[in-house]
């Protein structure tokens, strides 16, 4: 690959993916391999009185049945708070919690044995109302109480008063990441008591470190290698089957594979936090924000996962990308016996964007002002202060993004009502109408609406986290030609990171043959493929390692053939400042190998002050705006999104085609939460844990996306790039809901929007 940054080469992992021979974690096999299965709790909250494994052990083909007593090391794990049992001990706190494990010679034997593990429960009444979790009469689900984190932000004058005030209460449903690849992996024990785990994850090293603790092994005896990842979106930040497969493999001395079914996947990973947000906005008659008061309550479910970071985001960005001199924000994330919630694309900002954008529209209506104009009047810009006191550096083109989506052409208007009816009617394309081929309308009762929204989010891990990445780059001569090998532990989850790493190496070293090695723990941590951070941080590490290699190559050229100021690497050669080839890399290097490893550390951030919420807590911000056009059948409450338009500042598009893919794919997930996707939880139990009952946007649901991609740079990041992955999921949904409000005149305060939110039943 000789493509450089700014090009859109074919993906390096593309050919095996289109042929069907790319090895995903669920495709792996090994000689003598066993299959693992998990015994899960049928109750959201219960005491475990006894676990009897006798019958399960007696089943032919079963080689091991394990409970918490078989966990040699740490019995609890967690990304931020170690509160989640590897296998339940005395109590289960959520439906589907893992209680015991089975390894057998056939998946069916493992499944049957799992059914034969007899667990005696004393069923307890689950705590499923997050409001109640805050009260004293609620059962305490964890030793520290039910509040996982409380965030308090006090900015400016707490007694500020305004001419115009609007209030609102908003509710967000629980969304699933639904990556198509199931949680899966293969653990292979070695002869020295260690284990190799091939797994689909977002962060190999955090898995490795948690596993070492659980297995009571030194980290170098737990080696992870990234298997093919079938999408992630936050669902692979926590452990799922990793520890379980390793425990079974170490116990049986045989390779063990675990691969979840879709229903099991719904309990095998955390979800997007559902939430309730109560807002008050005050503004002057001219439409300048005076204050925002917000109370945010997120239901974290049974275990903490990333909850503490999610609530921080929900609070830090509660006002949206606007200048607001005074703010009062209180946010809680609480434990309940609902399914655990954690990371999903855009976390925190996805929830609050629905609220602050609904409020801005309400305020515009109260002021008699155009909603886009009101947003522009308050738009954040470079030098603005967040409500956490941090000054926004780098580009913050909020007004420009809004201008751009406003100016984009609109799709052709709806045909006049009834045009598809009666004699001489025009042929109606049903797929273009709400209800689609269900043939629920031919245009009668269909109303169009247009809505706008803008949002933003932090890129990278905030609040003082040491958010670094590591890259090793090796330059050598293979068959007479220079080859650069790039080795990192960064997870390719589909976003195109492998390709981007190769583009950076080709750019920095001027070589056409770049090989990106498989990600594993034989090189230092890359951090997570999360928070829109990986191109920034691992891209930065690859760039730094390449620069170190280049420096040595140029020094070698200097000593071998004499100097030329301004010499550079290009077209597999050392080239003088006048563009003449001084020496080819093949000749210069010969048998020599030049290898450098570099860590890349972005600027340090700081923890929010616990009393005021003030701090320079974030590294970078990414902004996007969306316009949605919807048609609503106001008789049946059915919605069809006709078109989405977006403008996003990406700093610098390292791979424009991949950037477009993020904008389109992220918007589809935003559309999903707005009008389709919700995990239905009743009394702590998931009612729709399948793709039959949990509705994902199909190609019929997803409209075209008009895109305007701005490259405004960033003074601190590699190449001026900005994180790209999350903003498309933040404001797309709120724009759709705004369009539904515009079409129907209804307040719509809850997502996903259901037919009965549109039609009285």
């Amino acid at each position, binding site marked *: 690959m000789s493509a450089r940054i700014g090009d859109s080469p074919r993906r390096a992992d*593309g050919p095996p993916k289109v042929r*069907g021979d790319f090895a995903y974690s669920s495709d792996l096999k090994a000689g003598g391999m066993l299959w693992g299965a998990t015994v899960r709790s049928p109750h959201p909250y219960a005491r475990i009185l006894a676990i009897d494994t006798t019958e399960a052990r007696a089943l032919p083909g079963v080689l091991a049945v394990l409970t918490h007593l078989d966990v040699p090391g740490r019995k609890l794990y967690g990304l931020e708070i170690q509160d989640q049992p590897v296998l339940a001990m005395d109590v289960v706190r959520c439906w589907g919690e893992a209680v015991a494990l089975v390894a057998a010679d056939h998946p069916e034997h493992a499944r049957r044995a799992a059914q034969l593990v007899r667990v005696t429960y004393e069923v307890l009444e689950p705590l499923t109302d997050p409001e109640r979790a805050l009260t004293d009469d609620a059962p305490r689900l964890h030793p520290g109480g039910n509040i996982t984190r409380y965030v308090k932000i006090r900015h400016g004058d707490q007694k500020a008063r305004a001419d115009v005030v609007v209030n609102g209460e908003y509710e967000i449903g629980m969304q699933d990441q639904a990556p198509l690849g199931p949680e899966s992996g293969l653990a292979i024990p070695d002869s020295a008591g260690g284990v190799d785990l091939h797994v689909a994850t977002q962060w190999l090293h955090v898995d490795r470190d948690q596993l070492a603790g659980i297995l009571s092994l030194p980290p170098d005896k737990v080696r992870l290698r990234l298997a*093919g990842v079938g999408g992630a979106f936050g669902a692979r930040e926590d452990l799922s089957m990793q520890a379980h497969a390793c425990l079974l493999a170490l116990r049986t001395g045989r390779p063990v594979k675990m691969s979840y079914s879709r229903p099991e996947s719904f309990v095998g990973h955390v979800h997007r936090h559902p939430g309730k947000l109560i807002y008050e906005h005050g503004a002057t008659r001219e439409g300048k924000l005076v204050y925002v008061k917000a109370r945010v309550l997120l239901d974290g479910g049974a275990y903490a996962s990333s909850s503490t970071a999610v609530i921080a985001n929900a609070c830090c960005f509660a006002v949206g990308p606007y200048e607001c001199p005074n703010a009062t924000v209180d946010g809680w994330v609480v434990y309940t016996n609902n399914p655990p919630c954690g990371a999903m694309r855009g976390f925190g900002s996805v929830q609050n964007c629905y609220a602050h954008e609904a409020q801005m529209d309400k305020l515009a209506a109260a002021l008699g002002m155009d909603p886009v104009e009101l947003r522009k009047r308050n738009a954040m810009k470079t030098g603005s202060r967040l409500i956490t006191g941090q000054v926004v550096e780098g580009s913050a083109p909020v007004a420009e993004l809004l201008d751009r989506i406003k100016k984009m052409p609109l799709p052709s208007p709806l045909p006049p009502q009834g045009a598809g009816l009666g004699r001489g009617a025009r042929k109606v394309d049903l797929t273009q109408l709400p209800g689609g081929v269900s043939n629920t309308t031919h245009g009668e009762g269909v109303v169009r609406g247009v809505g706008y929204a803008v949002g933003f989010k932090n890129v990278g891990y905030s609040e003082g986290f040491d958010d670094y990445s590591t890259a090793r780059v090796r330059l050598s001569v293979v068959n007479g030609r220079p080859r650069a090998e790039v080795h990192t532990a960064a997870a390719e989850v589909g976003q195109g990171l492998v390709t981007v790493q190769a583009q950076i190496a080709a750019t920095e070293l001027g070589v056409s043959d770049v090989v990106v090695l498989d990600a594993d723990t034989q090189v230092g941590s890359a951090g997570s493929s999360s928070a829109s951070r990986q191109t920034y941080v691992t891209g930065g590490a690859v760039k730094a390692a390449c620069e170190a290699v280049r420096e040595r190559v140029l020094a070698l050229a200097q000593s071998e053939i004499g100097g030329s100021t301004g010499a550079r690497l290009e077209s597999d050669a050392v080239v003088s400042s006048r563009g003449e080839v001084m020496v080819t890399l093949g000749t210069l290097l010969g048998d020599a190998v030049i290898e450098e490893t570099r860590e890349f550390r972005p600027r340090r951030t700081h923890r929010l002050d616990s009393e005021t919420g003030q701090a320079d807590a974030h590294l970078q911000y990414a902004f996007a705006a969306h316009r949605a056009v919807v048609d609503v059948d106001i008789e049946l409450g059915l919605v069809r999104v006709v078109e989405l338009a977006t403008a996003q500042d990406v700093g610098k598009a390292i791979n424009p085609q991949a950037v477009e893919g993020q904008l389109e794919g992220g918007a589809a997930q935003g559309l999903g939460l707005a009008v389709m996707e919700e995990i239905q939880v009743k009394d702590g139990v998931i009612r729709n844990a399948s793709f039959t009952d949990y509705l994902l946007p199909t190609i019929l649901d997803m409209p075209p996306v008009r895109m305007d991609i701005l490259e405004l740079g960033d003074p601190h990041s590699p190449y001026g790039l900005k994180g790209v992955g999350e903003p498309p999921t933040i404001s797309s949904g709120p724009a759709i809901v705004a369009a539904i409000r515009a079409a129907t005149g209804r307040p719509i305060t809850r997502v996903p929007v259901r037919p009965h939110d549109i039609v009285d039943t």
Partner: protein
Amino acid sequence: MNGRPRVAEDVWEGTNLLGVLREHMDLPGSKNACEQGECGSCSVYLDGRLVCACLVLAGQAQGRDIRTVEGLASAGVLHPVQEAFLEAGAVQCGFCTPGLVVATHDLLTRTPQPTTMEIREALAGNICRCTGYAKIIDAVHLAASRMRP
């Protein structure tokens, strides 16, 4: 199986065709995202008809003609549909890709120059969680233009 007779032994009677392909025939290209007929990631040809391999019992497939994604590229040369998916950027994580490639192959066999609406209808049973589908539609148009006789 992709033009050759193949025998699978020791197949548990409850296994579906997808399980036979993946666990017994070493053909893991057909994917297992839902095993409920909802996502299309397991799409294969059964006697020339597009089916979800997860909805076909192994026994039903006995003696029939099966073509999977692995049977589309010939002698290391990608099929134009596969080429088009790569070029259009229709592949991200790729888990949906084998099913979409087979479904697109089927569509273009029946309808060589489909409209965007025909593409949407034909691929409505294939879920992709990554791309938002725009580049998949581009890929189908691109493949159709390349395969124009």
